[in-house]
């Protein structure tokens, strides 16, 4: 048995030394895990949908903000599963994007078993409006840009450019339409007709979904689903928006409907340090690989966006 005697000074030093290590450990865990622990309590989830709507997190938009549908859907499901969360506000600031990704998010919004409110800020156009229309209530600023119900697939064609530099597009296809939409050749009237038919189909589906979400007749939706954008105040008159306002109006709607005092908590995909570092290196590798791939197997530039 040790007989050195008890030294209170040493004991107090140990306690505070370990507490300091504790603080550092908590800091590291939060940093590496990407947990914003201060914000996890609350009864109203706020999910931002910002930037171009894309289908994958590793899109080409290195320097632009993008709303990746898998991330947004994960946040929606998380908020829906949390029994503390009584309602969800979608803070929308997006010009639209991929038709598929927009529909995926819109479907996820519709599946939510809680009150949902779309709050359109600067812009909630095209695919972003599709998502907004899926919510129970749509709030927009009077000068927000919204609507733009339509589909776009325009692209640049380069055959003249190739001719000028004496380059030849050697067409090697098995299947008449395999290189439809290739920017290296001129689109034939027949191909254009096929394209237009498909775009019209997507537009009809898009408009049909909005009509269903907003309880609008076919006649009413056809009047507005022409690709034109509307200011918030116009959208309200056309029935595309329920209320003019901002965050306060969105919260007031929820408080009134759910009879709660709203405590808003932001749900967002915070990335930890490791994830960010991994992301940067994987993006660099991706672009190097993509550059090599594109030069070898250049593909069609065609993209269909809402």
């Amino acid at each position: 048995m040790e007989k050195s005697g008890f030294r209170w000074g040493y004991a107090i030093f140990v306690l505070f030394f370990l507490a300091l290590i504790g603080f550092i450990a908590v800091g590291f865990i939060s940093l590496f895990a990407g947990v914003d622990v201060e914000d996890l309590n609350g009864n109203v989830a706020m999910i931002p949908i910002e930037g171009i709507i894309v289908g994958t997190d590793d899109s080409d938009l290195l320097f632009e903000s993008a709303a990746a549908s898998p991330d947004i859907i994960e946040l929606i499901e998380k908020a829906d599963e949390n029994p503390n969360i009584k309602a969800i506000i979608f803070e929308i600031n997006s010009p639209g994007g991929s038709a598929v990704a927009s529909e995926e998010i819109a479907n996820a919004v519709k599946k939510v078993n809680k009150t949902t409110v779309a709050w359109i800020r600067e812009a909630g156009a095209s695919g972003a409006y599709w998502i907004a229309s899926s919510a129970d209530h749509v709030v927009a600023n009077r000068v927000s840009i919204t609507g733009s119900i339509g589909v776009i697939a325009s692209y640049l064609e380069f055959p003249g450019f190739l001719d000028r530099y004496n380059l030849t597009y050697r067409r090697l296809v098995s299947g008449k339409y395999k290189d439809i939409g290739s920017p290296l050749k001129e689109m034939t009237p027949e191909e254009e007709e096929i394209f237009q038919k498909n775009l019209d189909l997507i537009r009809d589906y898009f408009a049909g979904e909005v009509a269903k979400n907003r309880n609008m007749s076919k006649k009413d939706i056809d009047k507005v689903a022409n690709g034109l954008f509307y200011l918030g105040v116009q959208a309200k008159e056309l029935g595309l928006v329920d209320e003019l306002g901002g965050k306060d109006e969105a919260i007031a709607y929820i408080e009134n409907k759910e009879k709660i005092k709203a405590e808003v908590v932001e749900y967002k995909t915070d990335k930890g340090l490791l994830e960010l570092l991994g992301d940067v290196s994987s993006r660099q590798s991706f672009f190097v690989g993509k550059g090599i791939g594109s030069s070898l197997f250049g593909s069609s530039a065609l993209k269909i966006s809402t």
Partner: protein
Amino acid sequence: MKRLDLPKERQFIGPALVWKRIAAFLIDMMILNLIVLFPFRKLFQSMLPKEYSFSEAYNSFAGTMSASYISWISFAMSVLAILYFFMLERKMSQTIGKRLMRLYVAGDKGKLKAWQLLARNIAFIPIFPFILLWVLDPLFMVFSKTNQRLSEILSKTRVVEKYSLD
């Protein structure tokens, strides 16, 4: 006849009483919770939403990233608890709780070695098979003649106190 010059008080060292050991442990836990583990409290409170039942919390966390964060937090907390006992028992053979209850840690064979001090506190690690010690340790302490926990038997250490004979 010449009188024997015996000391007025005689002391010997024996196994610590169970109630004293429990009291010392509770004091240590309280201190750990108040000071050392204080930074983790906010983290845990924020991660476990309000009004959650155990099953709801389990379902919410099962298979999510939060579950792995909580594992890391638990692991960090257990390391700090082990360090608390290790640093104090290594230097002074006592923790604050043991000091207040006048208990000591002793090795079966002389001076305490670092591995012995780590081994006797291994039950703090919240990983199988160490969590079995949460049940086995108290059972051994109550039913063994020397009041030793299983991890104390394995680490060849014991908690003792001084007894006086007047």
